[in-house]
């Protein structure tokens, strides 16, 4: 599998003027973004901002109406398999097979990336250890809590050692300790050099030093390091800055729309 490290100047993931629409409804409008290795990039946006659509384009579930996606320099349109091989993805929906055990789920996922035998066993064991799931490997997924299931999904996304990790609302439905644990795990991966794109609408998942990309109505509204963004927006917190970029806009749009209608 072609997952050799790329030159440091090359972004791990590059989105160039991406646009997408559902029929005549625009979901993404000329989104450009470079994701770098070793950086935790939080894609912050309210529900309906276009985050899941963006992830679906990167995962090649949809095809963009305009623009280009490159993963480690490989164009997703013309070299989809090379590009996808460099991605580890945790999607918003739970996707594990509930009737299979943790180990069976991971072996299946490993096989999809061409890993079998000793190599697969080694990777699965290492990830189960790292994510403290070793004693759960023979448990059926149905028996696991939501937090543990998410950690299994994280392990699955890392089986083929992808340089780019995408997580779409990975903490939805989890309690506070489980959320904190997943956020910790993924920050640790970024510290090891993995390029992380973390889509969320929960501001408290962003930490000092993280890069924050605010998306609203299919457009990128801000892109800066967390504290720099707070300063730029003259806000007291990231929550205020985020609200100013999204909720404030909605509040401004509402009276304008009402005025136009009257």
């Amino acid at each position, binding site marked *: 599998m072609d997952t050799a490290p790329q030159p440091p100047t090359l972004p791990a993931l590059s989105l160039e003027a991406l646009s997408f629409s559902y029929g005549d409804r625009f979901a993404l409008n000329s989104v450009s973004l470079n994701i770098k290795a070793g950086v935790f990039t939080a894609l912050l946006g309210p529900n309906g901002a276009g985050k899941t659509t963006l992830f679906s384009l990167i995962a*090649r579930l949809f*095809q963009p109406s305009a623009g280009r996606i490159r993963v480690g320099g490989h164009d997703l349109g013309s070299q989809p398999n090379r590009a996808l*091989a460099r991605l580890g993805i945790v999607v*918003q929906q739970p996707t*594990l097979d509930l*009737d299979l055990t943790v180990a069976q789920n991971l072996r*299946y996922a490993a096989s*999809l990336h061409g890993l079998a035998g000793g190599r697969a066993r080694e990777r699965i064991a290492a990830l189960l250890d790292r994510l403290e799931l070793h004693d759960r490997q023979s448990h059926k997924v149905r028996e696991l809590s939501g937090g543990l299931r998410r950690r299994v999904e994280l392990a699955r996304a890392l089986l083929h050692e992808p340089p780019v990790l995408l997580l779409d609302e990975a903490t939805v439905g989890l309690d506070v300790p489980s959320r904190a644990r997943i956020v910790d795990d993924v920050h640790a991966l970024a510290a090891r050099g993995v390029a992380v794109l973390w*889509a969320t609408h929960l501001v408290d998942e962003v930490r000092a030093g993280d890069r924050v990309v605010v998306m609203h109505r299919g457009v990128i509204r801000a892109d800066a390091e967390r504290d720099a963004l707070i300063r730029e927006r003259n806000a007291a917190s990231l929550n205020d800055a985020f609200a100013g970029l999204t909720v404030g806009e909605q509040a401004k749009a509402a009276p304008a729309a009402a005025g136009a209608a009257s």
Partner: protein
Amino acid sequence: MSAAGWAICFWGILVREVLRFLHQRERFFAALVRPLVWLLVFAAGFRAALGIAIMPPYQTYITYEVYIVPGLLGMIQLFNGMQSSLSMVYDREMGSMKILLMTPLPRWYLLASKLAAGTAVSLIQVYAFLAVAWAFDIRFPTAGYFAILPALVVTGLMLGAVGLLLSSTIRQLENFAGVMNFVIFPMFFLSSALYPLWKLEEASTVLPQIATLNPFTHAVELIRFALYAELNGPALAVTVAALVAFLALSIIGYSPAKGLMRRRAAGGGESG
């Protein structure tokens, strides 16, 4: 990915399908009981009413039970194809289909692997049914038990491809039962599974023509001849052509540009 990687991926998909099948014991028993009811109850009743003339591949008069076995083997594969389709719609609703579609291999290969894995599961069911039929003294030439294997692979792939195509067009699990009624029953009853086409001609001039256009008829005839270690060339040609057509349409249905994932998302499947 290397050639070995492709093979590992196929093996992984196959193992998962078999594991899922083994976890669903009810599915196995349903697959076995359904044709057995036809064989041991319906066929016993029909035997007196329906005389079967000597016709290829049969060399002599046969009982009705012997006649309908190929159709029941086709029925097992038809239901298995639809079951695979249902599980694909379920996988899509549950999200696990995304994991397969995000695999760094060509989508046609992933779908074909899924199809082949479903066919392998149908073979387990078919041979289990033949074993039970053998126990009830409904037996075929020994060579036939081996000769039907390639025929069953082709027919299983074709009927699985029908299921795959359906799964690419059905938006929600709730719609599945309705679609099934419009596929399984016409396919099964408008075929040579339960009665020879010449028998159908006695009742209508149109129905045999429709049955001739039905790929399931050709699948059944392919199996029927193979059970006597004979090749029905035209039936093989039609079955293979239908397989290619259904598979091609399924691949289009699951393509990122034209496919269902996009239409479904447009309907508001996920937020974010």
